[in-house]
């Protein structure tokens, strides 16, 4: 069902193709029904977790305050985290770009002569295209989260940040397993399918030399990496192999351990409607002398990749409050209709629209920021109160305003003005002149009603789904005159 929208499964796809990909999904009643059902399910699960509107509001405010407090101290906290982790025996690495991060990770792996890596769910590792880089270096990088394992087996990318294989039906997964997993016959029994995955991956956990994971919260005061999960694969990846490499964005940091319980509660309730996840895994050091398991080495890679650009602007900084729960996409009418692959970016949905321009530049993402009805649902459900609709409007003006080279203004963003069109700008300047000069307005509207037959039939994006606009035969002012 998804062949037409996954033409380049391992690369960010060009923005120009966004409309075509979105249309392909919208034109498929099957896909639309499947996304609608999944999103309705997730929305009702979340709603059931927040029966008390007051509790939800005060907890969201607390979550917002915690994230804003920690972001306001970000450089200090990164240093504190580094100091604590180093004292605990964890090695800290810094990466400005995805290429840097891949080089660091592959360097660690190759330095140990290792070739087998199992991965816990990590969207940052998707962001840097680690699997692609590992494959090119001859290293096996196997996804072990069930959803990630399924999309990797299918040669695709996740279509949702929490539920990677949400676009697939169990019948498709049954066919995929029967085709790709040796010795497996077709079964669409979900329990049986999960047991197939379990058996394949248990063998891999036993054999892997490297375990890779993401991080949900990094606690500066204790030097602790916190991981949230249900399956146990995150614990496997961080406990069974001899080396654990964690990767995270520089923004996922909290100063105090007590900041964790409110954010953790908001995360699981908003994401999947669970009061808590099955596992909360807090890692503070490698194996200590006398301990009988756990990795001998733990590494943390801190990735910038455009986050410091968002950080530089007071309004755009709010983007970094995100705790990656996915509630914004679950409640988004656009995501529900076009699904996660159409966006062509690692992070789909509303959060993807506001974070991707910092990672990829506005040049490839200016179409994304306009793909919103600004209904406000994303901002309303965000557990840390990111004003996503406001940020979308801001990014639109950054994308379509005159590039800084012309206006001489400092650039807040990479590829500012990427969507700027001199013709469109001239039209709007003319419009502004007409509407702010009464004599000109009268003259133009008089002319318009006389020359209405000359109105073009095709009017850019407007007429793609609407009838053309045409001035009325008589102006309102003429009609009013006739009444007297």
């Amino acid at each position, binding site marked *: 069902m998804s062949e037409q929208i996954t033409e380049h499964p391992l690369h960010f796809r060009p923005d120009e193709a966004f409309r075509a990909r979105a249309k392909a999904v919208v034109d498929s009643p099957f896909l639309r029904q499947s996304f609608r059902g999944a999103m309705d399910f997730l929305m009702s699960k979340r709603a059931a977790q927040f029966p008390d509107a007051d509790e939800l509001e005060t907890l969201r405010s*607390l979550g917002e*305050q915690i994230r804003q*407090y920690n972001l*306001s101290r*970000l450089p200090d906290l*990164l240093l504190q985290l580094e100091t604590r982790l180093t004292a605990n025996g964890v090695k800290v690495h*810094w990466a*400005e770009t995805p290429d840097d991060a891949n080089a660091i990770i592959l360097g660690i792996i190759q330095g140990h002569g290792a070739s087998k890596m199992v991965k816990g769910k990590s969207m940052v590792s998707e962001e840097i295209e680690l699997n692609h880089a590992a494959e090119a270096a001859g290293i096996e990088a196997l996804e*072990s989260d*069930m*959803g990630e394992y*399924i999309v990797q087996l299918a040669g695709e990318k996740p279509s949702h940040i929490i*539920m990677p*294989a949400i676009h*697939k*039906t*169990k019948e498709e*997964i049954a066919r995929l397993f029967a085709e790709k997993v040796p010795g497996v016959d077709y079964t669409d029994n*979900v329990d049986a399918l*999960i047991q197939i995955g*379990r058996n394949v*991956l*248990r063998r891999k*956990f036993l054999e892997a030399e490297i375990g890779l994971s993401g991080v949900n919260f990094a606690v500066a*005061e*204790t030097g*602790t990496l916190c991981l949230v999960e*249900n*399956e*146990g694969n995150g*614990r*496997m990846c961080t*406990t*069974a192999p*001899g080396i654990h490499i964690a990767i995270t964005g*520089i923004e996922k940091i909290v100063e*105090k*351990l*007590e*900041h*964790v*319980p*409110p954010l*953790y509660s908001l995360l699981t309730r908003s994401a*999947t409607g669970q*009061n*808590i996840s*099955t596992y909360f895994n*807090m*890692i*503070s050091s490698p194996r200590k002398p006398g*301990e*009988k*398991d*756990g990795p001998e080495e733990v590494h943390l890679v*801190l990735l*910038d990749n455009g986050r*410091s650009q968002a*950080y*530089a602007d007071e309004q755009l900084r709010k983007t970094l409050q995100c705790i990656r729960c996915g509630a914004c996409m679950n409640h988004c009418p656009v995501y529900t209709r076009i699904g996660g692959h159409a966006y062509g970016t690692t992070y789909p949905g509303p959060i993807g629209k506001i974070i991707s321009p910092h990672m990829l530049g506005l040049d490839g993402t200016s179409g994304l920021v306009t793909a919103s009805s600004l209904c406000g649902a994303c901002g309303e459900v965000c557990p840390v109160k990111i004003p996503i609709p406001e940020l979308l409007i801001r990014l639109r003006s950054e994308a379509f305003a005159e590039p800084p080279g012309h206006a001489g203004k400092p650039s807040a963003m990479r590829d500012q003005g990427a969507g700027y069109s001199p013709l469109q700008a001239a039209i709007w300047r003319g419009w502004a002149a007409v509407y702010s000069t009464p004599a000109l307005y009268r003259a133009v509207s008089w002319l318009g009603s006389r020359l209405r037959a000359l109105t073009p039939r095709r009017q850019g994006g407007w007429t793609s789904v609407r009838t053309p606009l045409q001035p009325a035969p008589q102006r309102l002012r003429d009609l009013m005159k006739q009444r007297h």
Partner: protein
Amino acid sequence: MSARDRILAKLRRNAPSTTNPLPDVGAWFAGHRPVETAAEKAARFRHFIELAHAEVHPVDADSWLDTLHGILKARGIGKLLLAEGTAHGDAALDALPPRGIECSVYDMAIEAWKTEMFTATPASLTGARAAIAETGTLILWPDEREPRLMSLVPPVHVVLLDATRIYNTFFEAMSHEGWKDGLPTNALLISGPSKTADIQQTLAYGAHGPKELIVLMLTPKEDAQ
């Protein structure tokens, strides 16, 4: 200049001039839940962990080994992994072998017996440090005697919990025990058997960790139901 210095310099150059006020997390939790008795907390804990598909058996100091034996027998499990040197591990090590349960102990680094752990260890018994009522959660701090993989790899995980050690919330547990002043290599919250809903939002248990989580809730004898 290193990547580290460049990232930090960029952040510092554009950091806000003032720090936001420190949020009062304690104040929020102070009004979050009413004070509950031990029995109420135990009931709440049990309710939520059972919702998450764990099995709970109230036991007392005299009966818990019988209950454990019964649980293993009912499942046809003849082998149990134990933590030697813990009170519960030593007690089980004394009581179970005479009753036909082979007991193995985690006395070597995992590298020496990883394959056996993954392929021939059907069940394990560990203690819990404490629990959380609000979410039905066990708190485990694995250590030298009771290592990390014991609560993860065996398909059946049995946990002995002292029911007098149940906190209301996660926040209360970490504050009361002063976790910020010292965390172990690995601290864990466990709230049920391993599960996933990654295939068409259908819940399935036993994804990668234990398929069954069984809690023996140890209650002082006069209170035991």
